[in-house]
């Protein structure tokens, strides 16, 4: 077992000559600052927002008041986060800060190690937390503002419910990120799962939405089992679940009472594996991803916030936070597994994304794919790159989702890219188109001007930088896979863009086109008949369903504002790459910008080796070119097949390709059917469980209930036998008495005989 503290010394001696700027040594996690309790409000303000929205619901508020209250609370929370960052983490001192709320759980049944359990409601803020909280609260505020208009057709009970769940979500996420111990993290973990359920199933009258909500929650729970077991084993081994005490123990290998900790396989391999299972469940990776595309049934702001930027990144956060434990294994088995899991998921989701027609779902698969990138980054030992990708992805994916939402909102729920075309050219959709373009460029990793390029690049480069010493098996293969996926990502992203936003303007209204002003809350529909913004140039859409007087409804000021803001932030994130963070106590600076340096100052710092080469050159430099080329190729292909020469919305040159290449149609069909994963799960897991539950139901009904009824039947039978004895007839009683006397006498007689 090599203490992690020794690795930097080892690697620095190797890497200093190779590359400028070795990775910084991890910050000493032993020291802690005490923070002012004011920062508790970062989490408590959204909770207050929840209470206020609840009051709105109780008083049956029918205006947009809950939205403004939510925005206010979240903005205040963001302001506090900013203050926290600027005051405490913007300098050279990056000691983690502890903000104590109240003593929550504390049990002690002995005085030895592992005989007391403490879990307080306290925050452990280090630079990783800071970064996370900044984009969580920031995006939450923006998306709350977006939702204020997006959900405005549902004013009343639905509106209040939405914003209440929204506030609860932000509270849970804050608690998750800022928790100072695993139990509190789990509280937040479950909270975000719950809110995801509540918000996906917002349209609770729609069966698909309800099913999707249940699916999300249940699949999360499968992962939660892993997280719980990991927590138990951590407590058993280390005697604590608090980070502040855990990290020094992991680092030094010595527990609180001075005993050497047994770094068994269970602790170094299985426990991180269980943590990974939890993370994969929450972040929709590998086998547990199928809930995320279905989660698009919820309102689009929900998808933007929860399923793009915050909740699904909780898994990444978990692994980043517990990286010291992952690193305690000299063979890095679990990290390898994480890398491969992420890469495979990325590839897999991208294949589906290339064939799908529902643009929101394509974005969903894209999220799964990009999350795969983040996990791959963690597994490839660039935690900085992974977190940077989280950061940038949050913004551009949110932008993309918001734009899809605008399209859905404006075209009465139409999301099929075969039925929409040339939206950018329609009046009032300029901002949407621009934001979409920015987001798509980021997602595709357009060279140089997009933050997505830089963040993806870091991960790709790291894949090739890993030497054998890093013990990440197949690191280069992962790299090639991710590169291929990058090309596919670019292709399918621009497939969506070119089909929907360019070309001849035409549209068909979606399933909610029959909406009236008095419709029920079940549909995400157009708000009545045209606000006046919605009249486009083409009066009679070609190929559209002749719905009388359907006009697309361009987004209002709130939506436009937020989309624009997100797009600009996505661009501004580029600058983050070039802003260098402060050097840490050792004088090392990080390569990769502010986010990476923040990560490197936290407990999630990793000592990424820099030894590998790509085609004989430095991977970082070459990757700029390589990924740029791949991305551009993807965009060009998309343009060729889906943009150029397209005259209708539902045909494109891609269709001719199907005719040319035999078998491509079946492959495409299979990909469109999500490779039948859902069906396989249904047959393998859901059906047997259903049967099992029926069996248990029968057991419960007949055996358990039967036993209980049988127990109840005995007194009844007894009573039925006894009751005739009380007939009220004197003779019966007399008979009984005489018989009883006779029996007693007989017994006495016989006993006296026997005794004598």
């Amino acid at each position: 077992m090599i203490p992690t503290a020794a690795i930097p010394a080892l690697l620095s001696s190797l890497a200093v000559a190779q590359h400028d700027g070795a990775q910084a040594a991890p910050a000493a996690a032993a020291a802690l600052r005490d923070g002012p309790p004011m920062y508790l409000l970062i989490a408590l303000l959204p909770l207050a927002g929840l209470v206020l929205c609840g009051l709105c619901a109780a008083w049956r508020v029918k205006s947009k008041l809950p939205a403004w209250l939510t925005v206010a609370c979240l903005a205040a929370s963001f302001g506090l986060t900013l203050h926290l960052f600027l005051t405490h983490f913007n300098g050279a001192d990056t000691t983690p800060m502890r903000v104590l709320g109240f003593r929550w759980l504390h049990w002690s049944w002995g005085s030895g190690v592992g005989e007391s359990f403490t879990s307080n409601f306290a925050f452990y803020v280090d630079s990783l937390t800071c970064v996370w909280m900044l984009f969580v609260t920031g995006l939450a505020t923006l998306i709350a503002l977006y939702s204020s208009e997006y959900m405005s057709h549902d004013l009343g009970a639905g509106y209040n419910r939405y914003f209440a769940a929204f506030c609860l979500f932000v509270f849970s996420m804050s608690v998750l990120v800022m928790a100072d111990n695993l139990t509190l993290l789990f509280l937040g973990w479950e909270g975000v799962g719950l809110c995801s359920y509540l918000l996906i199933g917002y349209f609770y009258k729609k069966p698909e939405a309800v099913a999707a909500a249940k699916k999300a929650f249940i699949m999360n729970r499968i992962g939660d089992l892993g997280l719980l077991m990991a927590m138990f084993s951590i407590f058993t081994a280390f005697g604590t679940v608090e980070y502040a005490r855990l990290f020094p123990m992991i680092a030094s290998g010595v527990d609180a009472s001075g005993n050497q900790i047994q770094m068994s396989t269970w602790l170094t391999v299985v426990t991180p594996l269980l943590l990974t299972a939890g993370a994969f469940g929450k972040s929709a990776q590998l086998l547990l991803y199928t809930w995320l595309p279905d989660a698009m049934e919820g309102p689009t702001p929900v998808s933007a916030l929860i399923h793009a930027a915050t909740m699904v990144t909780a898994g990444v956060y978990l692994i980043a936070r517990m990286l010291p434990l992952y690193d305690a294994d000299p063979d890095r088995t679990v990290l390898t597994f994480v890398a491969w899991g992420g890469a495979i998921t990325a590839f897999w989701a991208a294949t589906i994304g290339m064939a799908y027609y529902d643009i929101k779902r394509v974005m969903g698969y894209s999220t799964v794919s990009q999350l795969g990138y983040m996990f791959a980054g963690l597994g490839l030992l660039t935690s900085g790159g992974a977190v940077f990708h989280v950061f940038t992805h949050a913004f551009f994916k949110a932008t993309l989702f918001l734009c899809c939402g605008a399209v859905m909102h404006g075209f009465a729920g139409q999301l099929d890219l075969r039925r929409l075309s040339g939206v950018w050219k329609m009046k009032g959709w300029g901002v949407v188109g621009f934001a979409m373009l920015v987001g798509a460029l980021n997602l595709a990793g357009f060279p140089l001007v997009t933050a997505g390029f830089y963040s993806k690049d870091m991960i790709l480069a790291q894949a090739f930088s890993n030497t054998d010493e890093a013990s990440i098996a197949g690191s280069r293969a992962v790299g090639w896979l991710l590169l291929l996926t990058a090309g596919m990502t670019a292709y399918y992203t621009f497939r969506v863009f070119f089909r929907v936003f360019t070309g001849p303007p035409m549209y068909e209204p979606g399933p909610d086109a029959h909406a009236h002003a008095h419709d029920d809350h079940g549909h995400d529909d157009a708000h009545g008949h045209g606000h006046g913004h919605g009249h486009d140039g083409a009066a009679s859409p070609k190929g559209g369903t002749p719905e009388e007087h359907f006009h697309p409804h361009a987004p209002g000021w709130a939506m436009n504002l937020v989309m624009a803001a997100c797009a600009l932030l996505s661009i501004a994130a580029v600058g983050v790459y070039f802003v260098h963070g402060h050097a840490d106590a050792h004088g090392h600076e990080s390569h990769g910008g502010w986010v990476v340096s923040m990560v490197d100052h936290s407990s999630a710092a990793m000592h990424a080796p820099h030894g590998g080469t790509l085609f004989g050159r430095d991977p970082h430099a070459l990757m700029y070119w390589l990924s740029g080329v791949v991305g551009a190729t993807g965009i060009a292909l998309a343009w060729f097949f889906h943009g150029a020469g397209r005259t209708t919305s539902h045909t494109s040159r891609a269709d001719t390709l199907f005719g040319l290449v035999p078998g491509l149609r079946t492959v495409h069909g299979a990909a469109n059917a999500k490779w039948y994963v859902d069906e396989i799960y249904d047959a393998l897991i859901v059906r047997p469980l259903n049967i099992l539950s029926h069996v248990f139901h029968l057991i419960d009904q007949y055996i358990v209930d039967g036993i209980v009824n049988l127990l109840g039947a005995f007194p009844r039978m007894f009573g039925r036998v006894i009751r005739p004895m009380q007939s009220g007839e004197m003779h019966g009683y007399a008979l009984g008495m005489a018989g009883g006397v006779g029996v007693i006498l007989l017994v006495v007689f016989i006993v006296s005989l026997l005794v004598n």
Partner: protein
Amino acid sequence: MVVVGADTADRIKPAHGGPAGGWVEPPPAPIYPVALPGRDGTGHLRRGARAAPGTDGNGPGSGLNQIINPTVFFVLLVLGAAGVCLALPRRGRTPQIVGGLVAGLAAGLLMLALGLKAGREHLPNVYFYIFSLVGLAAALRVITHPRPVYAALYFILTVIASAGLFLLLSAEFMAFALIIVYAGAILITYLFVIMLATQAPEEGQEEVLAEYDTQAREPIAATMAGFLVLAALTAMAFRGLPNVPAPAVANPDAMLASVPRKVDRVLRNHGLLESGQSADLSRVAEGVVVLPGGKELPRPEWPEQLRMTNGELLGFNLLRDHPGTIEIAGVILLMAMLGAVVLSRKQVQLDEEAKSRRVTQLAEADAAGDPAVDSPLGLTQQPAHTGGGGV
């Protein structure tokens, strides 16, 4: 049967010495008149004697065997039960006679069986058999006769039979008291009430025999229960009888001292005493009456009537030994009388005229504010309490 008198007290002394070698005065235990084989006068086993099987009062079947063979006994009981069960009244053609005969047979055989073990010298009087069989037969008829009046009459027969048994037991006062009180008073009351409570016969019918009289209720179960009680009772009684302490011998003549006037009268009648003289009875317990003049009259010379009669002895026992109980018995009778009067206070049916008069009287009383006038004869109208049938 050996009569043990006071002169046999020395037989109490055991032939051998006591535990400490000296002679130990035995406690004044009642003397067993019956010298059972193997037992001495105190009932304990003689030294060296082994208790005969079934006679030592300790083994199974002991005691019972002395009186009657257990198997025979229980078989006869079962027979008797069958007989009684058959004899109970039921609808239609009944085997009552057969049942009665069987029961009688069982009873007779039982008496016979009891006599076998007893031996000639321990058999009761022949009159015992007569009275007991009559009594039991009448008792059986009491419970099996469908007509209540006949049952009561058969009961009177039972009473007479048991009076006969009392006579055999030297309780002549009780015998006649029984007849007078039971047969003469109680049963007559029963007959009165039976007559009172019989439903009137309708036109054309001779008499009405209620359904509840003609059919016995659960005859088999009742018979079984009853004979179960009988079996247990008799078995235990028979087993315990030999252990019941023997009757104490009391000197009957000592009581003569309590009736000096009777003694004087009898002696006077026999010319042994002049009028105005009285005998000295101070030594009558030894059997000597001292006449005035010093002449001693030993017992063999006593006149025939100079002994206590049953009534006198009973009277002494009643009044001397149980005075309080007599008082209580009197109170019981008084309460019974009062109770009967209260219970059967009948609502007298007023005729119409009297009713209307009564109503106006009540109305006046109400108007005047008086509490409801109560008729001194207890003829208050209490309509609220009437449940039906006018109690």
